[in-house]
């Protein structure tokens, strides 16, 4: 199973094995990673699973669709490397992916 690194805003990180096919958000929720709320359950209807993607990874993962980018406008402190973790599906290619959670989600 691909290993995903979840980092919090203080720099603490946790490496979790996430099953391929799950989203980066689901991997976080199932393993009780703090800082990802996912209020809407993954329907791209809120921005509470917002994460920053490690710069080396940002261009390697499939690009966000328009609706996701629009929703990121509503996230807390969005940056250039912002994504909604519910829209990133884990595959073997994502082995080693590193994401950071913002200071807060709302």
């Amino acid at each position, binding site marked *: 199973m691909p290993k995903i690194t979840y980092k919090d805003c203080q720099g603490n990180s946790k490496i979790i094995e996430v099953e391929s096919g799950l989203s980066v958000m689901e991997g976080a929720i199932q393993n009780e990673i703090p800082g990802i*709320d996912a*209020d*809407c*359950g993954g*329907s791209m*209807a*809120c*921005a*509470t699973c917002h994460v920053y993607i490690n710069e080396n990874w940002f261009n390697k993962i499939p690009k966000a669709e*328009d609706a996701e*980018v*629009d929703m990121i*406008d*509503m996230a*807390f*402190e*969005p940056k*250039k490397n912002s994504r909604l973790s519910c829209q990133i599906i884990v595959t073997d290619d994502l082995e080693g992916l590193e994401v950071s959670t913002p200071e807060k989600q*709302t």
Partner: protein
Amino acid sequence: MKKTDVIIIGAGPVGLFAVHQLGIKGLNAVVIDNLDKAGGQCIELYPDKPIYDIPAVPECTGEQLTTRLLEQIKPFKTEIFLNERVEEVHQEKENWVVKTNNKKEFIAPNVLIAGGIGSFEPRKISLKEAEKLEGKSVFYSVRKKDQFKDKKISIFGGGDSALDWALELSKFSKITLIHRRNEFRGAQHTLSEIKKLENEGKVSIKTPCQIEALDDEKHLKFITIKFDDGKKEKIPTDIILGFFGLIMKLGPIAEWGLNMDKKTIEVNPKNFETSKKGIFAAGDICSYPGKLKLILSGFHEVALASVECFKRARPNEKYRFEFTTSSKTIQDRLGKK
């Protein structure tokens, strides 16, 4: 204080269908919602997006679903109180008393929470100066336009609200439109109007940048914005209008003493009652083993909750299960001959 059989909190699809399920059983209800219109997430988040999993409706938008539900509950003439946020729920003997932020009060033996993920509230600027100036120089909605006459206004956001207000207020004020991306998302007509005003020098557009600081926490004169490349700029500003969209907040519900699981309310899947007798929860806000956050699940949940509501509201009557196709009583209640 208004007396009824069931106080429904939330006018989303599940809250609206609850009116129907209670109505055919002869129960009266009121609906309370924090938004200015019925429909909940369907209207606020995806009015134009198609929904494909409503049984027997192959495809409909959030707006169509809401319109149809409102049509379906018309016979019951239920009052929907909008722009009201429920703040407090407390017990008075066999009844529950519900108070809103505008001091409206309701009393009923049953409360049904169909609150989705909580109430929608505007996302705010996370600077403490902005918090202090809120309502004075920092606003997240426009109530009275006159307030914004002959001012230097910085509007934040890239969606319809930001664009529409930039157009409207540019008629009598100096507007700077600021967005974190280069792309704006709005009706084509609005976008071209904005471009025109920019060329005429009536609206100034700053992208891609975000707010960095406010010069003063008492009398706003300047704000500082920071571009993606790190460059900063001071913008003379009397008024900040922020349109960063709405976020959903659980709000006061968390303080009503109900058993919670994170941000959801635990219910008994037999009747959708919470840990307090007479308080029910249905739709996205409730949790039980196997819960799915689907509109159709919410419909099922309120159907079952309505039976228990009947028993509490009419303790001396026997509940009788009936079909709408064959029950004369139900057809009368629906206004059918």
